[in-house]
């Protein structure tokens, strides 16, 4: 069991895993590892069609054991089904400048949450992915997972305007198209989620799932208005709030001029002075987002960029399981 867990890519350190290959490969590893650990078929729908048998593995749901075969051959096999789906999902990915950041800039300070590890790609800290890099891999994995369930998956990339818009499709080649879009370079300055969310809703011509992956460094009322519209249209929405650990816990000491790369807002501060107040403020902001999303029936998860991809993937999968 331990060897199985050790090989599961969804439980790897994100930065270490990302260093092993491109988004496409890494995402496959993540999804494969995730499905191995699931121990039951992810495919489930209103109309299912038998596909094949496979040997029983401990943890498989006993409902799917073919008891006739077991009685005849004294072998336990599991019936596997292919399902048809009518879920249309759209992943809305924030690619603004604030997303292209990791806690590397604060490495000169005595940041308590620093971890040793392999260097990362995409301009992130050697031991941590930027929020964008992390979000891109998570998006790819999530899309692959949904596509394997026969769901139609689309993608909207946005910063201060919409950069990419791929309508949801379940056909073969959709995932490669999505991955190709994710590998497109360039980020703008600010984030403008409302327009992207509306665009995502427009891409789904009937009720569907919209997943917003963003650092939410934007104005809450604007997002709230957009979310109300989505919810009014009957869409299920979930938000994955991507945060670098350094954004939640400042280093314990040091002084610097902290500059927002999007707005150029500059704040001089001593870490020791404001650390506690900053943490309280971040918690307060998270609480505000959580309250707002909760009031709209929107799922909200905080995703730390040092968490293995399996963690947010599992949450998204659980949400998907709740949908028809």
């Amino acid at each position, binding site marked *: 069991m331990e060897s199985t867990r050790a090989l599961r890519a969804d439980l790897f350190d994100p930065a270490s895993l990302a260093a092993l290959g491109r988004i496409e490969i890494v995402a496959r590893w993540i999804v494969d590892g995730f499905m191995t650990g699931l121990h039951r078929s992810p495919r489930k729908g209103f109309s299912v069609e038998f596909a094949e048998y496979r040997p029983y593995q401990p943890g498989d749901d006993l409902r799917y054991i073919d008891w006739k075969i077991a009685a005849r051959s004294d072998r336990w096999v599991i019936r596997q089904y292919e399902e048809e789906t009518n879920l249309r999902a759209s992943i809305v990915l924030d690619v603004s400048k604030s997303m292209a950041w990791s806690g590397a800039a604060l490495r000169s300070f005595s940041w308590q949450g620093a971890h040793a590890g392999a260097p990362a790609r995409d301009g992130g800290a050697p031991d941590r992915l930027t929020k964008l890099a992390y979000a891109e891999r998570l998006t790819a994995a999530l899309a692959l997972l949904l596509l394997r369930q026969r769901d139609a998956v689309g993608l909207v990339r946005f910063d201060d305007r919409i950069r990419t818009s791929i309508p949801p499709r379940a056909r073969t080649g959709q995932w490669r198209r999505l991955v190709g879009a994710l590998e497109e370079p360039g980020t703008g300055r600010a984030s403008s989620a409302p327009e992207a969310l509306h665009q995502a809703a427009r891409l789904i011509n009937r009720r569907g799932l919209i997943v917003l992956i963003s650092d939410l460094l934007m104005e809450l009322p604007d997002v709230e208005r957009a979310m109300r519209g989505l919810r009014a249209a009957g869409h299920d929405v979930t938000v994955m709030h991507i945060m670098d650990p350094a*954004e939640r816990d400042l280093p314990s000491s040091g*002084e610097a001029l902290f*500059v927002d790369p999007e707005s150029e807002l500059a704040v001089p501060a001593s870490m020791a002075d*404001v650390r506690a107040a900053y943490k309280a403020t971040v918690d307060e902001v998270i609480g505000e987002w959580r309250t707002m999303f909760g009031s709209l029936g929107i799922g909200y998860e905080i995703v730390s960029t040092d968490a293995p991809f399996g963690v947010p993937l599992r949450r998204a999968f659980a949400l998907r399981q709740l949908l028809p």
Partner: protein
Amino acid sequence: MSFLAPLYLLLAGAVAVPLLIHLLRRRIGLRVEFPAARYLARAERENSRTLKIRNLLLMLLRVIALLAIAAAAARPVARWLGAGHAPTAVAIVIDNSLSSSAVVNGRPLLDQFKAMARDVVSSATPTDRLWLVTIDGHVRGGAPSVLRDEINRLEPIAGSGDPNAALARAATVVRGGGLEARQVALLTDGQRSEWDKVPSLGDAQLLLFAPSAPPPSNRAVVLAEARPIRWTPRGTVAARILSRDSTTYRVSLNGRTFARGTAAPNEEVIVRAAPPERGWVAGTVEIEADELAADNVRYFATWIGAAPAVAVAPAVGPFIKDAIDVLRGSERVTDGHDIAIIGGDELASLPALITAPIDPVKLGAANRALERAGVPWRFGERRTGDASVRGTGFDGVTTAVRYDLVAQAGAVAETLAVVGRDAWIVAGPRYVLIGSPLAPDATNFPVRASFVPWLGAVLTERLVGEPGQVIMAAPGAQLPRPRWADAMEGSTGQRTPLGETLDVPARAGAYFLTRGDRRVGAVVVNAPPTESVLDRYSASELRARFQAGRTLVTNDPATWQATAFRGASRRSLIEPALLLAIVTLVVEAVVIGARGRRAA
């Protein structure tokens, strides 16, 4: 407050560092990209008041710490606060007068003084300057170990010493000590008779310890006197005992007790005697020992000899013959040729009571006789007319005829009576010279009632035996050297030649003065009777009496010891300054730590 090393105050300039850090902290050069800067701004906005107060507090703590360190380096001293003591010049004055030997609680008071003084000496630092001053005015300076030895050797003196001189010298030495902090630390029993007058100590602080307990009840011999000084051989010893009740006494001569008795309080006791001893002898009057044993014995000295044999010249007149008959009848004189009572013109040898010649024609012969006899006086101009005589025992005596008494070179004599400004009777070694003939038409002195006693005293006290006298002196006193003596005989018989002065021994006793091989007098050393009166001043009375820069009077030995070096001196503030710096830095660490914990 002042600083012993003020240059180090320049270190205080370091306070500019935290001030600049505080003022310039918003001018931070390090620029860091931080997307969540909006949260940071919001956090600062919502906590700005707390942050400002905390930063201000930290800045103040750092400034205080730096100031305290700079102040400590500058070696601050102050009167009102501090630990240890600044370099201090201290003169410890120990009242080792006779009264300090009184036993209180089974221990001489002086022993307590010595113990307290030793403790103070032990608490001196190398930067202090110390002196020990005893109540007789002797000053000793030196290292603490030297002074401790001096203190250990200290004994009570037989008298009251010279408290004024002791305090004045103590004030002088601390003034000359070259230190700003000066203290005179006095240990005394606060005896009223001793501190009747006190000198000013200037700006030196006086730290005075006096016991609060009442003095012990004391009995003392306050008078012991041979009357007259020369016994022929009869005489008396007058004694007075200071006590609250009757006290037994003992009178002895040369160690031989010849009288005992019981004296009522303050009664003058007269003991008559005709002892067999001859020459100069010492005697004592003693009582039972009490808490102050030193004044339970008092010394006297007297000359004892046979009654002088007197030869009266016929020319001196009938009154002297009648007077001598009276004295002979009382066995004070006998017939013989030891002493001549004679007119000046007939003088052949000394000792003699010499009168002026009745016949003025014989004046020249008289002066020549005086010169031959070695009497340094001459009869001068003859004066007539009634004139009053002044002198002890000469009340109502007048003269009608008299001669001026003219002193010759080297004349050393005692004037016993004067007329106007002129000497009328002078006395020198082995002679008494009268400026008038003792005849009724020249003076009424021979017919006065005082004449016979005066004549008896002159014959038995001035002219009998060797010339010399008894000198009553206080212990340790310094007196002019008597011309009639050249050495002093100690208690063990050894003789010490006299110098220009007569240095009276510090111990009570009778010390004989000698000339050649013969005893010619005595120095009787006794404590002043007032030293036996142990009444003490209260602390408040003492405080009011002394004039000093600052006076602290205490009855508590611990307070006295604790205040030594500190009361007058400005104490060192180095330790408090360092303590303040440490406390400030600890508080700063706590504030920062609390901030860190909240941040975590």
